[in-house]
């Protein structure tokens, strides 16, 4: 066996992938040829450096839990989707009925908000999320699952807080489209009421937040700016409870103790 042949086959030999005949030929050649023997030794040394060098990355402990819960949720979502489409359809229908009723009873109850168009857009997004069986892209009550999910899907990182203890459990998140840009939508629940919290970076300087609920089509909306983001909470929940939700969310996202201008979420 000549050298260039040996050098072609030396890797297969090293990996135990060479047939017996040719393995024997290599074993005859190596002691007779110093150059090939040295090459073989080098590759052998490299292999043992790699395999004994603790280069193997073990999965971090919490990844197993994270993967398992994601898999189970995906599995559950799949089997429930048929059921849910009917449920949301009926929820949507009753919401629409309530909205019609309220509109008929109090035709001029509220003054038109400043950014009427935005309000309409937000309500449409809210209703769409309830009716089209597309309320979550990521269904989880764990903010450490929901927040990273937005990575790579948005050009900003929305603050995600869990308000379960305060009676507003986080249910999940999804991508939505508002104000001509992709936005984060976080989904919270209060009893049977769904709250959509839309978040995107503020285009203009923060205005003094009025935090006054606006009512339209039977939905309540509250808009505010905090930490460079615009927030829009919308729900069919009553005004008082929605205000409580916003107050809690606001205190979690920018605690009063944080120095002004700091991003508490980072």
């Amino acid at each position, binding site marked *: 066996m000549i050298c260039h042949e040996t*050098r072609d086959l030396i890797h297969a030999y090293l990996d135990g992938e060479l047939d017996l005949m040719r393995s024997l030929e290599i074993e005859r050649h190596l002691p007779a040829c110093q150059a090939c023997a040295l090459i073989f030794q*080098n590759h052998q040394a490299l292999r043992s*450096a*790699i395999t004994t*060098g603790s*280069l193997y990355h073990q*999965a971090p402990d919490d990844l197993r839990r*994270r993967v398992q819960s994601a898999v189970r949720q995906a599995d559950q979502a799949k089997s429930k989707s048929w059921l849910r489409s009917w449920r949301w359809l009926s929820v949507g229908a009753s919401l629409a009925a309530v909205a019609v009723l309220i509109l008929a009873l109090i035709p001029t109850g509220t003054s038109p908000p400043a950014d009427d168009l935005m309000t309409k857009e937000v309500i449409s997004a809210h209703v769409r999320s309830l009716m089209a069986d597309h309320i979550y892209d990521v269904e989880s009550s764990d903010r450490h699952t929901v927040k990273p999910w937005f990575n790579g899907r948005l050009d900003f990182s929305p603050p995600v807080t869990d308000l379960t203890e305060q009676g507003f459990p986080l249910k999940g998140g999804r991508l939505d489209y508002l104000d001509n840009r992709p936005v984060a939508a976080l989904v919270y629940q209060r009893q049977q009421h769904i709250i959509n919290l839309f978040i995107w970076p503020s285009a203009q300087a923060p205005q003094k937040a009025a935090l006054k609920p606006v009512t339209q089509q039977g939905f309540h909306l509250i808009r505010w700016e905090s930490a460079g983001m615009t927030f829009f909470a919308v729900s069919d929940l009553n005004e008082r409870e929605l205000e409580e939700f916003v107050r809690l969310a606001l205190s979690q996202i920018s605690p009063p103790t944080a120095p002004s201008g700091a991003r508490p979420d980072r």
Partner: protein
Amino acid sequence: MQNPNQLARFEQAALPHLDAAYNLARWLTRNDHDAQDVVQESYLRALKFFGGFRGGDGRAWLLTIVRHTCYDWLRQNRRYEPLTDFDEELRDVESDAPGPEALLLRTAENQLLRRALEELPVEFREVLILRELEGLSYKEIADIAGLPLGTVMSRLARARRRLQQALTPRMREEAHL
């Protein structure tokens, strides 16, 4: 997958290979955070395609999906990815030049080795990881990477030569320090 047995079957087939999935994703994306995201996404894809899994080697099946997901990720984050340099090939840097490196290699710093591996172009890196760290056969690697057997063999050979070439000057530098 409305059958709970099916979910249990999936978990039995796929979850034991989490380390293998993470190790491959970690070496291909070269950071922990993205590797974790890629692994989670891979498992969700695997669940979706579990109907097509005919039993047998769950690890090879899962690694095929992890590799696909990694390449999707790389396509979106290509900026930092070293590409195969064809000039280099013309200059034949991959020829086997015998030298007294074996001794040096034995004492190769882990850190040096890790860095040199990370800097290898991805198509060389993946065959080395699958062969040396995962201990897979040429046939298994060929199936996972969708390559002919001969290509697996030649890529491994070239990957090792490149790695050796990258390590030797660095080790000499370290030795002189």
